C-alpha cells in the first residue's frame, strides 16, 4: 500500500487534513492562489486538489485531501486521504480543525502524532468560537501537544502568516508521545514488538490500527512481514480475544481522556449561566431524569397532537370528509353510472373495493395527510439532532433487554419502513442483537404509515391511545427481556460522538419532508391500487367472502366483527392499508371503543408485511424468519384476545 520512496527536498509537500467543512479548502486557496489542479486520485473517483506556493524562497506543493474523521478509514474519501498521508512524503501535515468542536476533533490530531507524521495543528474558525464566549490558549495547547499550533480564522486571513511560518520551520523531530492506560499500553506493546519491518507509520500507530481490525493495514503488514506475519496475527488475535468487543471503544475512550486532559486548562467555555441553551438541552436529553420527560413531551406534541389530532383529524377530515366524500366520490360515481354500463367495471372503479373509491381514496385522502405530518415531525426531530441523544437515553433500557443504543438506528428506521430497518440490523455487532432487533421490529415497531393511521384512529377515543401505548410498550419490553434471556451472546458496549444540537433549518426540514413524502407516495400508490384490484377480484370471484368466513372465528375470539377480516388480510401485504381499513370501519361506526383498541393492538403486533417477511428470510434465513413469523402471529392474537377479555371484564373503555 505505502511505497517507501523519499521525495527530493526541492519538492516539499504539505498535506491538509481534517474533518469536512473545517476550512481546509479555504486554507488551500489562501496558500496556493489561483493556479491549482484538481484531478481524481489514481484508481479512485475521489477528487484531490494540488497547488503550489513559495515560502522564504522554498517551493511547496500543497495537497488538499478529502474530509476524514479518523486515521481508521470507513469511506473511500477517508481511504484516499490516509493513502496520501502514507504515500506522499510530507514535509508537513496541517490538521485543520474547527475551534468550536475542538474536543471532538482533537483525537485525530493525536492519531496523526502517533503515526509519526510532522503535524501542524491549525485551530480554525477561532473568530466564531470567540464570539460565542469560548477562549483557547493557543501557546499552552502548543506546549501541551508538543507540535506547532496556530490559531486563526483563515477566511479572514487571520493566522495565515503564522501557518506559512510554521510550514517553513516544520521539523518532524521529537514528536511527543501520549500515554494511555497501562493495560492498553501493554496491548499496544505486545503487537508493536512483533513488527520487524520498517514502515512509514510509527509502530505504535500501526499496532493500534491492527487492533482495530484495519484490513488495509493488515494487508500491508502481511506483505511486508512475510513469515513473521503469523506472529503478528497471533498477537492481535490474542489481544482482541481478551477484550472482545470493547477494544475499539477502549481506544476511543482513552483518546478522549487524553484530549480532555490537554484541553482542561487550555479551553475556557462560557460559564454555566451563559452556556448555550443548545448545550444545556443536549445534556438534559441524555440524562434519564430529564430525558424521559422530554421524550414524553416530544411524543405528546409531535406525534399525538400534531400527527394524531392535526394530521389524522383536521387534514383527513378536510381531504377525505370534505373533498372526497362531498365532491370527488359523487362526481366519479355519477360519471361511472352514466357512462359505464357493466356492473363489474363499475365495481372495479367506484364499487366497495373500487380503484378510485378505495385505492385512490386510501392513498391520497387517508394515509398521505397522516404520513405527511408524521414525516414533518420526523424531519424536525432529525434536524435538531435529537435521535443520537435518544439512542444514548434508551441505551440503558435496551441494555436491560440485551441490546445497546446502536439498536436504536434500526428501530428509528422501523418507524419509516420495517423492511429497510430489518436490513439495517446487519450493522449490529452480534448475531444475538440482530435476531432480537428483527423480532422486535416484526412485533412491536409499527411503520410510519401504520403508526400515523393508528394514532389518528385512537386519538378520537378517550383512553384508547393510552391502552394501546401501554400494551405495545409492555409487549416490547417483556418479549425483548425474555428473548435476551433465551438467546445467548455478548452484550456489546455503545459509544457514539454526539453532533451538536441546533435549531431546525427550514430548508432542511422542508426538503427532507417533501423527499420522504414523494418517495412514500410514489411507492404506495401503485400498491394501494393493486390491493384494491385484488379485493375487487376477491369480491367478484367469492374468494374474499371465503377468506372472511375463514377469519370470522378468529375475529370472533377477538370480539371483532367479521368485516374486520379484510383489514387484517390486507394488513399482511401492507400494514398501512390494513390500518386504513380499520379507520374506515371506525368512521362507519362499526367498531366500539373496545373493539377498536383490540383491533389496533392486534394489528400493530400482527405479522409483518410480506416485504418485511421476505427481508427477514434474506437476512436471517428460513428457520429464524419462520420462527419469528409464527411467534409474532400467535402472540399478536393472544395479546388481542387477552386484552379483549380484560377490557370487557374491567369495563375500561366501555
Amino acid at each position: 500500500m505505502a511505497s517507501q520512496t523519499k521525495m527530493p527536498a526541492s519538492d516539499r509537500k504539505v498535506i491538509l487534513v481534517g474533518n469536512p467543512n473545517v476550512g481546509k479548502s479555504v486554507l488551500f486557496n489562501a496558500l496556493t492562489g489561483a493556479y491549482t489542479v484538481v484531478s481524481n486520485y489514481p484508481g479512485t473517483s475521489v477528487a484531490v486538489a494540488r497547488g503550489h506556493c513559495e515560502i522564504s524562497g522554498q517551493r511547496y506543493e500543497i495537497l488538499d485531501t478529502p474530509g476524514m474523521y479518523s486515521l481508521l478509514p470507513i469511506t473511500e474519501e477517508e481511504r484516499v486521504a490516509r493513502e496520501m498521508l502514507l504515500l506522499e512524503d510530507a514535509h508537513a501535515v496541517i490538521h485543520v480543525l474547527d475551534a468550536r468542536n475542538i474536543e471532538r476533533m482533537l483525537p485525530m490530531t493525536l492519531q496523526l502524532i502517533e503515526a509519526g507524521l510532522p503535524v501542524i495543528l491549525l485551530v480554525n474558525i477561532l473568530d466564531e468560537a470567540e464570539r460565542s464566549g469560548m477562549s483557547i490558549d493557543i501557546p499552552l495547547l502548543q506546549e501541551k501537544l508538543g507540535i506547532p499550533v496556530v490559531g486563526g480564522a483563515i477566511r479572514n486571513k487571520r493566522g495565515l502568516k503564522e501557518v506559512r511560518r510554521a510550514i517553513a520551520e516544520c521539523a518532524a523531530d521529537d514528536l511527543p508521545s501520549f500515554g494511555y492506560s497501562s493495560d492498553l499500553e501493554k496491548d499496544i506493546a505486545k503487537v508493536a514488538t512483533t513488527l520487524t519491518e520498517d514502515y512509514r507509520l510509527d509502530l505504535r500507530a500501526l499496532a493500534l490500527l491492527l487492533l482495530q481490525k484495519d484490513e488495509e493495514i493488515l494487508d500491508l503488514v502481511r506483505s511486508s512481514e512475510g513469515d513473521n506475519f503469523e506472529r503478528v496475527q497471533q498477537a492481535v488475535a490474542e489481544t482482541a480475544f481478551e477484550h472482545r468487543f470493547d477494544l475499539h471503544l477502549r481506544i476511543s475512550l482513552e483518546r478522549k481522556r487524553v484530549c480532555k486532559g490537554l484541553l482542561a486548562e487550555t479551553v475556557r467555555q462560557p460559564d454555566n449561566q451563559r452556556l448555550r441553551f443548545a448545550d444545556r438541552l443536549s445534556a438534559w436529553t441524555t440524562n434519564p431524569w430529564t430525558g424521559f420527560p422530554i421524550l414524553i413531551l416530544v411524543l405528546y406534541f409531535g406525534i399525538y397532537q400534531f400527527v394524531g389530532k392535526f394530521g389524522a383529524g383536521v387534514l383527513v377530515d378536510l381531504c377525505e370528509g370534505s373533498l372526497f366524500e362531498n365532491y370527488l366520490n359523487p362526481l366519479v360515481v355519477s360519471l361511472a353510472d352514466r357512462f359505464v354500463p357493466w356492473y363489474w367495471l363499475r365495481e372495479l372503479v367506484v364499487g366497495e373495493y373500487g380503484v378510485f373509491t378505495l385505492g385512490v381514496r386510501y392513498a391520497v385522502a387517508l394515509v398521505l395527510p397522516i404520513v405527511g405530518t408524521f414525516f414533518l415531525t420526523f424531519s424536525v426531530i432529525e434536524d435538531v439532532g435529537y435521535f443520537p441523544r435518544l439512542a444514548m437515553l434508551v441505551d440503558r433500557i435496551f441494555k436491560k433487554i440485551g441490546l445497546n443504543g446502536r439498536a436504536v438506528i434500526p428501530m428509528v428506521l422501523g418507524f419509516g419502513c420495517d423492511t429497510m430497518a430489518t436490513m439495517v440490523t446487519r450493522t449490529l455487532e452480534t448475531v444475538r442483537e440482530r435476531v432480537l432487533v428483527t423480532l422486535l421490529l416484526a412485533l412491536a415497531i409499527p411503520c410510519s404509515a401504520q403508526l400515523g393511521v393508528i394514532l389518528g384512529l385512537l386519538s378520537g377515543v378517550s383512553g384508547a391511545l393510552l391502552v394501546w401505548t401501554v400494551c405495545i410498550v409492555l409487549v416490547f419490553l417483556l418479549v425483548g427481556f425474555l428473548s435476551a434471556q433465551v438467546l445467548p451472546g455478548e452484550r456489546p458496549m455503545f459509544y457514539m460522538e454526539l453532533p451538536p444540537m441546533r435549531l431546525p433549518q427550514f430548508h432542511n426540514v422542508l426538503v427532507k419532508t417533501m423527499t420522504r413524502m414523494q418517495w412514500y407516495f410514489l411507492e404506495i400508490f401503485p400498491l394501494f391500487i393493486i390491493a384494491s384490484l385484488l379485493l375487487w377480484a376477491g369480491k367478484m370471484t367469492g374468494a374474499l367472502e371465503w377468506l372472511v368466513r375463514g377469519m370470522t372465528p378468529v375475529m370472533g375470539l377477538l370480539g371483532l366483527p367479521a368485516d374486520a377480516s379484510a383489514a387484517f388480510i390486507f394488513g399482511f401485504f401492507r400494514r398501512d392499508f390494513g390500518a386504513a381499513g380499520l379507520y374506515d370501519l371506525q368512521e362507519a361506526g362499526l367498531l366500539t371503543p373496545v373493539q377498536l383498541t383490540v383491533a389496533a393492538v392486534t394489528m400493530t403486533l400482527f405479522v409483518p408485511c410480506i416485504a418485511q417477511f421476505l427481508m427477514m428470510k434474506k437476512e436471517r434465513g428460513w428457520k429464524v424468519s419462520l420462527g419469528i413469523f409464527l411467534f409474532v402471529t400467535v402472540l399478536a392474537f393472544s395479546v388481542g384476545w387477552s386484552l379483549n377479555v380484560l377490557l370487557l371484564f374491567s369495563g375500561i373503555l366501555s
Partner: protein
Amino acid sequence: MKCGFCGRHFSPAEAVEKESCGRCLRGCQKAYCPYCGYGNPLIPGFLDRWLKNKEKKE
C-alpha cells in the same frame, strides 16, 4: 451529504451503491450512512436543483 443521525459527511453515491434492500418499486431512494447505517432520504433532482440555486443566490 450530512447524515441526519451522526452528523458526519459522506458521498451518497457510494452509500447507495453499497446498501439497498431492493424491495422498493422505484429503487432505493435512501443513502445509508457508512459510519452509522442511518438511512437518509436522497433528495430528488428538482429539489436538489432548487436548493443549489437558492444557495447560489445567497
